[in-house]
């Protein structure tokens, strides 16, 4: 019953959102920029439930992959910042897309944070937000720790086959639940000097290489040894995972 009501609430909110005119705040001459977060393994699209092979030859399947993104911004050449979205729960089971109207001009960066800024994280009460807000009890979609007040910045759960043999069952669970202020990271992706013309539509694709979560350029996480962190209990692993995550993004125009 609850689930049904929640689904109906979300559908209602979605309908409301869909019925809003995207050009409502658009001024004459504005361009429409869409940020598209696309998950991939190499050149293949990533999907929850599909099996992939990591750099150590383990077969793995993700069952949950969600993350808080905050202060998603476009930075203009003159230093001006355009806020795309303040808080957003990205469920990488889908391809998150966010759009914003912008002035014509040169844009140099896409910038966003992984996690919730300190001022909104600890000592903040999710019950004070309306259900439609990403930091509310409903909006957080489970990315909140009740026993240690604060948001879970990233949740990456699944199972692996450590023998890496095709046809084997995936029986070894892994869970990376990372959060808390020291794990807040800022990602900046260079656009060069990308000119966005007025009255145009532009899509910027932020590519997230999922294998890099485990195998960053400087740190390889071995799922046989390091497969579980709720931040509490194994903070170092949570930090390693978060650092890999923050370096797994690139930009395609």
């Amino acid at each position, binding site marked *: *019953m*609850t689930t049904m*009501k*929640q689904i109906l609430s979300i559908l209602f909110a979605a309908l409301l959102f869909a019925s809003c005119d995207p050009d409502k705040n658009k001024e004459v001459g504005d361009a429409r920029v869409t940020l598209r977060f696309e998950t991939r393994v190499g050149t293949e699209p990533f999907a929850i439930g599909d099996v992939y092979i990591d750099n150590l030859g383990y077969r793995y399947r993700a069952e949950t992959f969600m993350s808080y993104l905050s202060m998603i911004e476009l930075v203009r050449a003159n230093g001006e910042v355009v806020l795309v979205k303040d808080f957003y729960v990205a469920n990488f089971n889908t391809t998150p897309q966010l759009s914003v109207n912008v002035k014509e001009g040169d844009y140099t960066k896409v910038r966003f944070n992984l996690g919730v800024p300190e001022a909104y994280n*600890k*000592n903040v*009460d*999710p*019950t*004070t937000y309306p259900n439609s807000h990403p930091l509310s*009890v*409903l909006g957080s979609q489970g990315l909140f*720790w*009740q*026993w*240690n*007040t604060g948001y879970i910045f990233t949740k990456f759960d699944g199972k692996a086959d450590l023998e890496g043999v095709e046809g084997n069952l995936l029986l070894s669970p892994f869970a990376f639940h990372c959060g808390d202020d020291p794990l807040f990271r800022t990602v900046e992706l260079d656009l060069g000097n990308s000119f966005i013309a007025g009255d145009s539509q532009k899509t910027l694709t932020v590519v997230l290489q999922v294998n890099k979560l485990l195998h960053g350029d400087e740190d390889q996480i071995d799922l046989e040894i390091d497969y579980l962190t709720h*931040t*509490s*209990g194994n*903070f170092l692993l949570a930090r390693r995972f978060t650092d890999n995550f923050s370096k797994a993004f690139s930009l395609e125009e």
Partner: protein
Amino acid sequence: MSFRWWALFSIIALIVSCESIPEFDDQPVHLKYPSWFPTPVIPEDNALSTLRIELGRRFFYSTEFSKDRATSCASCHLPSAAFTDGRKTSIGVHGKTGRRNAPSLANMAWMPYFMMEGGVPTLELQALAPIADTNEMSLEILELAERLNDNRYLREMSLAAYRREIDPYVVTRALASFQRTFVSADSHYDRYEFQGQMDQLSESQIRGRDLFFSRQTKCGGCHTDPFLSDFDFHNIGLYTVYSDSGKERVTYASTDAGKFKTPTLRNVALTGPYMHDGSMQTLEEVVAFYNRGGEDHPNKDFRVQPLGLSEEEQKDLVAFLHSLTDWNFVQNATFLPLE
């Protein structure tokens, strides 16, 4: 269907929907506490009122709070045991056993943070933890709000108290309001120490009191007046290796391993078993433990050292601890269920 049937149906529907709900009268409440307690901080958005306290009281005893509708807050926090449950560790949803001993809820209005590792900053937020914990209530708070709103009386009371239907905000506020009324300040020790009633402690209890606050035992170094807790975190050398790492869980610092928030000793004779994991059954065991000086641990508080207390001195300490019982608190009728 004829107009007559429609009219009859409408009248019946009207009667059914008008089942009598009384007009709620909400009045501000000023928390009563003794002069030797500091002023409590009550959040601006949750000022105490008669209705808010009553709503919290009804929530506190409601088994709708657990997935299996069998566990309420009061299942682990019984007024007669100073809001503990007499168990080593608490039993929650579907008979699951938790990892920790239920803490007393005495004087919650003055606690600076909650949970034994101190990870929750407000009394309002504290309620979220046991509701979500899979060993305690294991219920989505949104489902809980829906269950509670099905009770029209509670829903109307919520509207009168908070001007909104029951939701996570109301659940957490109302429970906090009720718990803030749990003031315990009328033990024999209070009367002796703060009201000058010198006949309130026995000779043995006075000797125990003197020992408790002495340089020899240093018990009063952490169990400070007036709450008999400094609300700080200490490793007392209970184990050489802790399976529950305590404060390290929230700071990730190995220097915090085995540190737990100092529990209040008010009503301690009623709150056994003792220690974070309920591993000691009696006060005699606890005093004997401190007399031995605890196990070796790199984080052990420097004050926990062998004390060299005689049998008589240990008995005096236990006698003093019994003087911390506030019978008016544990028998307070306003803490009991309404129905």
